[in-house]
C-alpha cells in the first residue's frame, strides 16, 4: 500500500510541475497577446505593472479573485458553477500528453493524438453549459453559436489530423514528431497547415471567428452573466486552449521538439526550447490575426467550414494517400 502511495505522490508531484508552468505561461501569453494587439494599433499596451508590464495579468487575476461572484437568481446553480470548472479542467488536462522532448512528457500513450482530439471536442460542454445555465438570452445565443461553430470546425480538424497520420503510421505524439526528422510536414502538407491554423482560430473562438462573444451583437456571449473568479476561469481556460492548439500545430506540422536542421550549433539547443519557440511563433500569428482581421459574419463562417475547408481537406487526403501509395512511401508497420 505504501508503494502505491509513493507512486501516487510522484505522479502528483509531476502533475504539479506540469500545471504550474502552464498556468504561468498562460498568464504571460495573455500579456503578450495584449502587447501585440497594442503595438499593431500603435498603442503601448499594458506596460505599467512590473518591467514591460509583465505582471499585468497577475494583477488582473488578483482583482478577479477579490471580486464578488454573482450567481443570477434564475440560473441553474449547479450547472452554472460547473461550467467554468469544466472549461478550465479540460483545457489543462489535455497537456498531459504533449511531449516537450523525447522523455519530457507526463504520459506517453499510444493514442495521444486521439486523446487530444477527444479532449478538445469536449471543450464545447463548458461553453454550452455556461450559456444554458445563465438562463438569459445573450449567453444562450452565444453558446448555441459557439457549439455549432466548434462542432463544424472539429470535422475539418479531424480530417487534417488523418492527413498527418497516414504519413506517420502511428497515433503516438512522439512518433509523429520523430517521423518529421527529415522533413517537417509543413512543407508537403502546407495547404493543410493553413486550414488547420484557420480551423484552430475558429475552434478556440478567436477573432476573426469570435462570434460567440461578438460584443456588438451578444454583449459577451456565454460569459455575460459570469463575474469574478468564474469569469477568470473561463478566460484562463480559453487561453490554455489557444496554447494547446498552438502546441498541437507545432507537433503535427512544425516538427515539435526537433531543431530546424540537425546541424552543429542548432542541435545543442534542448528540445523543450525548440518546442516553446514554435508554440510562441504560432501564438504570435494568433495574436497578429486578432489585431488585423475584421470579424466574420456567422453564415460566412459556416460556409467556410462546411463548403470550403471540409471538401478541400478531403481532396488533399485523397491526394496524399494516392501519392504515398503510388511512390510506395506508406509507413511500414513492424508486425
Amino acid at each position, binding site marked *: *500500500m505504501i508503494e*502505491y502511495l509513493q507512486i501516487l505522490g510522484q505522479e502528483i508531484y509531476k502533475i504539479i510541475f506540469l500545471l504550474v508552468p502552464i498556468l504561468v505561461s498562460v498568464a504571460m501569453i495573455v500579456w503578450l497577446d495584449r502587447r501585440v494587439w497594442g503595438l499593431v494599433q500603435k498603442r503601448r499596451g499594458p506596460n505599467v505593472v512590473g518591467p514591460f508590464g509583465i505582471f499585468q495579468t497577475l494583477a488582473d487575476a488578483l482583482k478577479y479573485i477579490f471580486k464578488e461572484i454573482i450567481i443570477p437568481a434564475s440560473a*441553474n446553480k449547479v*450547472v452554472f458553477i460547473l461550467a467554468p470548472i469544466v472549461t478550465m479542467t479540460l483545457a489543462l488536462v489535455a497537456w498531459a500528453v504533449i511531449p516537450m522532448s523525447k522523455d519530457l512528457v507526463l504520459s506517453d*500513450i*499510444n*493514442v495521444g493524438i*486521439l*486523446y487530444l*482530439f*477527444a479532449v478538445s*471536442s*469536449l471543450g*464545447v*460542454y463548458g461553453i*454550452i*453549459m455556461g450559456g*444554458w445555465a445563465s438562463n438569459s438570452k445573450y449567453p*444562450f445565443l452565444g453558446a*448555441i453559436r459557439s*457549439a455549432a461553430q466548434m*462542432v463544424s470546425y*472539429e470535422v475539418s480538424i479531424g480530417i487534417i489530423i488523418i492527413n498527418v497520420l497516414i504519413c506517420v503510421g*502511428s*497515433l503516438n505524439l512522439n512518433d509523429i514528431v520523430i517521423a518529421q526528422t527529415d522533413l517537417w510536414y509543413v512543407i508537403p502538407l502546407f495547404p493543410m497547415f493553413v486550414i488547420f491554423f484557420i480551423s484552430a482560430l475558429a475552434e478556440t473562438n478567436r477573432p476573426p471567428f469570435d462570434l460567440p462573444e461578438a460584443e456588438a451583437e451578444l454583449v459577451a456571449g456565454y460569459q455575460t452573466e459570469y463575474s469574478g473568479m468564474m469569469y477568470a476561469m473561463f478566460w484562463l481556460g480559453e487561453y490554455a486552449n489557444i496554447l494547446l492548439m498552438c502546441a498541437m500545430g507545432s507537433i503535427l506540422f512544425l516538427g515539435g521538439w526537433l531543431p530546424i536542421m540537425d546541424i552543429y550549433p542548432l542541435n545543442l539547443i534542448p528540445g523543450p526550447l525548440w518546442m516553446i519557440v514554435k508554440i510562441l511563433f504560432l501564438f504570435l500569428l494568433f495574436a497578429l490575426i486578432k489585431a488585423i482581421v475584421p470579424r466574420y459574419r456567422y453564415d460566412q463562417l459556416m460556409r467556410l467550414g462546411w463548403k470550403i475547408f471540409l471538401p478541400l481537406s478531403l481532396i488533399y487526403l485523397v491526394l496524399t494517400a494516392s501519392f504515398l501509395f503510388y511512390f510506395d512511401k506508406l509507413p511500414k*508497420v*513492424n*508486425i
Partner: protein
Amino acid sequence: MIVHTIFFYFFSVIAIFSSLMVITSRSTINSVFFLILDFISVGCLFIMVGAEFLGMILLIVYVGAVAVLFLFVVMMLNVAEQKQSWFIGKKSTHIPTGLIVSVLILLELLVVVGGWRYKEDLMSSSSLLISNISNTHQIGLVMYTDYILYFQIAGIVLLLSMIGAILLTFRERVGVKKQSYINQISRNPSTAVELKEVKSNQGVKIDD
C-alpha cells in the same frame, strides 16, 4: 492489481449510477448530462481493459458529437422540466412499452451471454495472444482486410441515412435572398450604377 480493481469499481459505480440517473432525473437537461457522464465512464472502462482506441473513439463520437446534438435538441425544444416523475405518475403509457423493450433486451443478453459459453473455438480474452502491435493497428488490420465489405456497406448505410435525414427536413423557401460571392466580387461601377431621369411628381420604379 488492487489499484486496478479500485479504479474498475470506481468507474463502474459511476457508470451504473449515472445510467440510473438518466432515466430517473426530472430535468431532461440533467438526464443528458448524466448520459454524458455515463459515456465518459464507459470510455474509461474501455481504456482500463486496454482498448484505448475504442475508448477514445467512444469519447470523440458519442460525447463530442452525439451528446452535443442531444443537448442542442433538448435545449431548443424547451422540454426541460417534467411535471411528474415516471414512477409517481399514475397513468403513464411509457411504462408498459419500456418494460417490454427492456425485457426483450434482457432476454437477448441472456441468449448471447449464455450461448457464448457453449460455442466452440470462440476467441476469449484468456486465449488472446499478447503482441507488440497496438490495438489501433490490429483493428485496422482486421477491418480493412477481412471485413472490408461490411465496413463499406456500413458506410453506405450511414450515407443513405444522412441523405434521407436531409431530404426529410429540406424545404425550399421562396422569396429568400441569396448571396452570390462571384457576382458580388465581379461587380464594377460601370455595371452597378445606373443613372435615371426622375420626372417631377412621377418618381421612378426601381427593380431589385
